[in-house]
């Protein structure tokens, strides 16, 4: 006897509306499950099946998944923070003060955004090193590694541009120290510095530029490259498995199996 919730979902899945949205149909056969991935614009970036031993925690530590998780948290909390924030001097600072002391859950929102941002930078680095040590950058995955490096840089830039937005002493001087380095570029250093800041020092123009980069340009770039990054996993034959590639430790069965135990 199915429970009430089951019958409810059963009825829901039969409705015309549901069927018009989810075209994979009812049932949990292999075909239906495959269609659920294939027929969804977001999920179709992923393969319909994954090697069983790649699903376990020890293969990937889920570092890529977790990095995506932090990105989603950052988009949600970031959009909510934008509702309370004006990118102008000195309004920006008082907005952040308001978030700390006036806005309901504002303090929590900012904390979550801040800590998730740190977590994302850390996880992106960890993911990169994990991929390297497994050798998962090898052919045919070379280009996906390059896309990953681009995503790492975008992550760093996202975090860095966000650093200025509270407009406190910490933000101001961290950005001053960082952007001063750009002046050291031979020949065009001062021009790059001016272009970054919209002036010769960190001021209201720089705040606006960093705000636009942080809230529009860099997130869009990240989403674009993320889509390519995920899609390429499928196109390059799924998550990397050592034994399937020639010229790796997999050629000699003994060290390979030992390796897996250690990982």
């Amino acid at each position, binding site marked *: 006897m199915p429970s009430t919730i089951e019958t409810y979902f059963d009825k829901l899945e039969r409705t015309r509306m549901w069927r018009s949205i989810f075209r994979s149909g009812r049932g949990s056969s292999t075909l239906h*499950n*495959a269609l*659920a991935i294939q027929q969804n614009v977001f*999920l179709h970036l*992923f393969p319909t*099946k*994954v*090697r*069983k*031993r790649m*699903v376990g925690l020890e293969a990937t530590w*889920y570092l890529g*998944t*977790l990095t995506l998780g*932090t990105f989603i948290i950052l988009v949600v909390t970031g959009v909510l923070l934008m509702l309370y924030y004006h990118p102008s*001097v000195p309004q920006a*600072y008082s907005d*952040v*003060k308001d978030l*700390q002391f006036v806005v309901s859950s504002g303090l929590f929102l*900012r*904390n*979550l955004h*801040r*800590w998730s941002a740190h977590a994302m*930078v850390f996880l992106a*680095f960890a993911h*990169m*090193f994990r991929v390297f040590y497994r050798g998962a*950058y*090898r052919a045919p995955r*070379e280009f996906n*590694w390059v896309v990953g490096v681009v995503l*790492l*840089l975008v992550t*760093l830039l996202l*975090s860095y541009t966000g650093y200025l937005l509270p*407009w406190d*002493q910490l*933000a*101001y*001087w*961290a950005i001053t*120290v*960082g952007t001063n*380095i*750009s002046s*050291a*570029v031979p020949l065009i250093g001062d021009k790059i510095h001016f272009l970054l800041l919209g002036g010769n*020092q960190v001021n209201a123009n720089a705040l606006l530029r960093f705000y636009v980069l942080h809230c529009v340009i860099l997130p869009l770039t990240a989403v674009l490259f993320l889509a390519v990054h995920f899609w390429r996993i499928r196109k390059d*034959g*799924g998550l990397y*498995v050592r*034994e399937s*590639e*020639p*010229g*790796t*430790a997999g050629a000699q069965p003994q*060290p390979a199996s030992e390796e897996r135990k250690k990982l």
Partner: protein
Amino acid sequence: MTPPKDFTATVGSDMRVSQRRVLFVTRRTSPQVKTYDEERVQTFPEVLIRALLAIECMVIALVLMSLLFNAPLEGIANPTNTPNPAKAPWYFLGLQEMLHYFPPVVAGVLIPGLLIIALIVIPYFDINIEAEGLFLKNRQQRLRLSMIVAGALTIFLWFFDVYVALAPTVFVAALLVLAAFSTPESPSRFRRYLALRPISWWIMTWFLIELFVLTAVGTYFRGPGWSWVWPWRS
């Protein structure tokens, strides 16, 4: 006699779907084909549920952290009052530490630029594809070469007084020597492990340790005027 072709060609018969389909099966089949019969699970629902669970656990951890610890917020930005030291975000402190020793054009432009290029080209160099232990072949010659590289690096870092980056270099060089005198049959598990490491592993591990040490020093051990401080004495 014509030389044997590198492929066989067939023509598909489903003319109604596509007018003509030519299939080339090359001799070197793609690596994925070999493991095709491997056990697989469906992305929906098995893998997606696991991914969601992993993310959910992380969200719980981050929410707890956000409830317990507040994000820093100092006084309003004041261009006339420079804090000492003025530090970049933690992930750039390794570079800021380098900035202490080298001119900005080296530490701020050359080093990060070369790092990014090095990361991008990793998969395109055969040296990174080779998975054999570094000292399994030509041991004497390779040991000599790696000692020359490590020695040159040590002298360079010594010359500029970069002791913070020098220590990990000497540490990795010591491990290299240990690896050179270890075999895959060694009774010690650690030495067996070292003996099987390829050259790319050594370079990346050196970089990882440097990154970790420089970032940690920049974060915890630098005070006013970028002088050395002990974090537990402040």
